């Protein structure tokens, strides 16, 4: 018989060593599969993947910006997850924020000064994201509805809403897209720093990471979130208002997703489409889980995911491989990483004892 037994706490150094070792094993397995499936030299393929993320300063900056955007969404989901509120509505909350930003840019672009416009965009997108998360939070707090389904459904509402406004604001008419907003005036575009258009996003998210780390681990509200997540009845026992904490935390979660929407529309894409969130609301779930909801470790997990995805498109173009091949490699590596967590927490014991007592007496 196979039994799964929970391990005693493992020393940190050992568990880190195991995790790093496993990534090494995963790379070897990926290499073997690459060699068998494509006949290419795995070392060359890996080199190309690294090229994809770090091959030129431009690529490095794009990589950094993408990591920052994914990290921003992951940070947004984290307070909700720490509370065991499974916010799968990141996608919709980003879209809501992006829609609000785009609306400000289109409707107010030539009416207010640029600094004021960006401030208004910030407020509007944060409010829109917060609203998108507050609705399911309210129903969870009041009627104990299932937050997973509710937040997921809100994604579709947001997508349809964006689809509607893409047609309303389409430019040029009949194109079915909005095109680049305020191409001439650049109104509402986030400013460049020393000529670098990516740096601002990276800096903002870096600040946010530290802020979120402090908020979750050292603030009173962060403490309340942990207590509610671990044991709602303990929370009530010490006088924490559980429903208030749920709504407040989701407003923060949604607001940060909305902020990510503004970074996407005002900072990088300068347009609005229904696919502008590009699955980040879901990828971020994985990033947050891999990091065990620790904002600092999320820098690493979001970096890994973005590195793999950039590498995947690079090998797809260089070797003429299907884009899916990169996804296969990503999948293998993630499988190994997640699998390790199981073996770090549990160990498998083989035994032949089952039913012995019955046989002895029978």
């Amino acid at each position: 018989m196979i039994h799964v037994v929970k391990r005693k706490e493992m020393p940190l150094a050992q568990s880190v060593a195991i995790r790093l070792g496993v990534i090494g094993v995963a790379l070897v397995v990926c290499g073997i599969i690459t060699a068998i499936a494509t006949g290419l030299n795995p070392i060359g393929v890996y080199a190309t993947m690294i090229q994809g993320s770090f091959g030129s300063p431009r690529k490095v900056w794009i990589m950094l910006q993408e990591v920052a955007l994914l990290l921003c969404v992951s940070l947004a989901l984290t307070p909700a997850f720490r509370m065991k509120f499974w916010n799968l509505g990141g996608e919709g909350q980003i879209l809501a924020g992006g829609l609000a930003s785009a609306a400000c840019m289109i409707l107010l672009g030539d009416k207010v000064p640029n600094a004021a416009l960006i401030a208004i965009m910030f407020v509007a997108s944060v409010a829109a994201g917060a609203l998108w998360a507050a609705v399911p939070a309210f129903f969870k707090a009041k009627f104990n509805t299932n937050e997973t389904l509710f937040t997921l459904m809100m994604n579709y509402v947001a997508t349809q809403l964006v689809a509607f406004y893409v047609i309303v604001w389409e430019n040029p008419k009949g194109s079915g897209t909005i095109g680049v907003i305020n191409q001439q005036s650049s109104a509402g575009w986030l400013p460049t720093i020393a000529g670098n258009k990516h740096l601002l996003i990276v800096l903002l998210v870096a600040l946010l990471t530290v802020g979120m780390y402090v908020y979750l681990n050292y603030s009173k509200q962060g403490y309340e979130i942990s207590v509610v997540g671990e044991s709602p009845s303990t929370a009530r026992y010490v006088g924490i208002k559980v429903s208030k904490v749920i709504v407040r935390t989701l407003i923060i979660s949604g607001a940060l997703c909305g902020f990510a929407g503004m970074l996407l529309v005002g900072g990088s894409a300068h347009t609005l489409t229904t696919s502008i969130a590009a699955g980040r609301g879901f990828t971020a779930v994985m990033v947050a889980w891999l990091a065990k909801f620790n904002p600092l470790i999320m820098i690493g997990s979001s970096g890994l995911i973005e590195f793999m995805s950039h590498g995947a498109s690079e090998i797809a173009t260089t070797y003429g491989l299907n884009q899916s091949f990169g996804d296969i490699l990503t999948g293998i590596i993630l499988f190994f990483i997640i699998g390790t967590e199981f073996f770090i927490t549990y160990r498998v014991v083989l035994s032949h004892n089952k039913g012995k007592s019955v046989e002895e007496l029978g």
Partner: protein
Amino acid sequence: MQVTKPAVSMHGISKSFGAVQANKNVSLDINRGEVLALLGENGSGKTTLMNMLSGIYYPDSGYIEIDGKRVEIGSPKDAFDYGIGMIHQHFKLVNVFTATENIVLGLKDKGKFDLAAATSKIQQICDTYGFDVDPNQKVYDMSVSQKQTVEIVKVLYRGADLLILDEPTAVLTPQETDKLFAVLRNMRDDGKAIIIITHKLNEVKDISDRVAVLRKGEYVGEMVTSEATTAEMTNMMVGRQVTLNIDRPDPEMKYRMERIRVKNLTVKNREGVTKLDNVSFTAFTGEILGIAGISGSGQKELLEAIAGLQPVESGSIEYNVDDEQVEQLIGMDPLKIADMGVVLSFVPEDRLGMGLVGSMDLTDNMMLRSFRRGTSPLTNRKESRHLAELVVDELEVSTPSISTPVSKLSGGNVQKVLVGREIAAAPTVLLSAYAVRGLDVNSSYLIYDLLNRQKGNGVAVIYVGEDLDVLLELCDRILVLCGGKVSGIVDGRTTTKNEVGLMMTKLGGGDDQ
């Protein structure tokens, strides 16, 4: 005295869980056409014993005979094959299924499944015994009593002729209890053997033919119900008084004042069952007021109502700040109570689920009560760390460090952490529920000592306990609850175990013969 050959005999059954001996050398006969009441206090091993009959546990030693033949019951399926069915306290039904679907769930009949035939068979069972259940009703539409009926029919449908009911009336209203008993009598008359686990004496008298008593895991004896008096049964259940030598200083009469006045308190639970019925009492400063009662007599609701955690139907709970100022605690939550300056400490029954956060370390658990202090949006762990160290030192908590999650500590140490934190707040009222449950002797005496020190400091201590010997030696006064009503308040120094035992099982106490 044996008139029929027993349907089931248990011989010398023992079972232990780790160091706890749940059953010790228990032998018991169950006859057909008879209702046997299995009586005993909380933790006396009734449910464990029956779980071995229904295949959930396997005895460490001893054996079971059915119709004189020795059998092995290794799983619930084996039990079913021998016609043994148990109705547990917590129902195991699928909410979105109908009664019929739940009843046939898990059956492995060959061939195509015929739901219509099953429904008519269920209807037939219901008609035979007088069950009131609609086979096509969904479980989520059912009352607690109807769900219980479905569980019973489920067992009968599978051909059980020995039925075990684990405290079936705990969730029922008196009318529903009468209905259940009527059905049980029909089944008995049909020749089935019925065991009912209970600690309510009036029900034992009402339904059973024979009563077997367990105490601390051991079989104490049995009686024919019609020949037994309530007093005899109580004596068998609680046993003779044991001297524990717990310290009980006399209350300081000079400063004694009324601290908490509960008047006509009535509480209903979420299912609308009355848990506290018109309860009135006063708790004084500098005394330990014990609350005795069979488990589920309203102790939990009473403490939680005082602590602001339990919605109240009617009545009042007054807190005397001093001779002039009186605060009403009803309608307050724990935060509002604390804001009024009332330092009310509460050691709840569910230590890790309610009093502490298991995954958090000692420091963070100390912070639960104090984290709001100060205007800074950030927490201050310095004081909590200090308090954690203090509690570890003073109460001799055995822990690797104060950064260990409390769920990794043993039960006694968990309780020390919880009690230590609650006492550190310098309370004026200390509520405690089953404060020594699961604790070893040394830890228990440490807790008694801590409670006595609080009493010496003028705290109004309310101690909900289950061990009568402890209550009798520790408490100044004992309030006895029976079915949510106050059965009486007695002086801890002069009362006897039998008196309290009778009051627990019968309103107002006293013998009925």
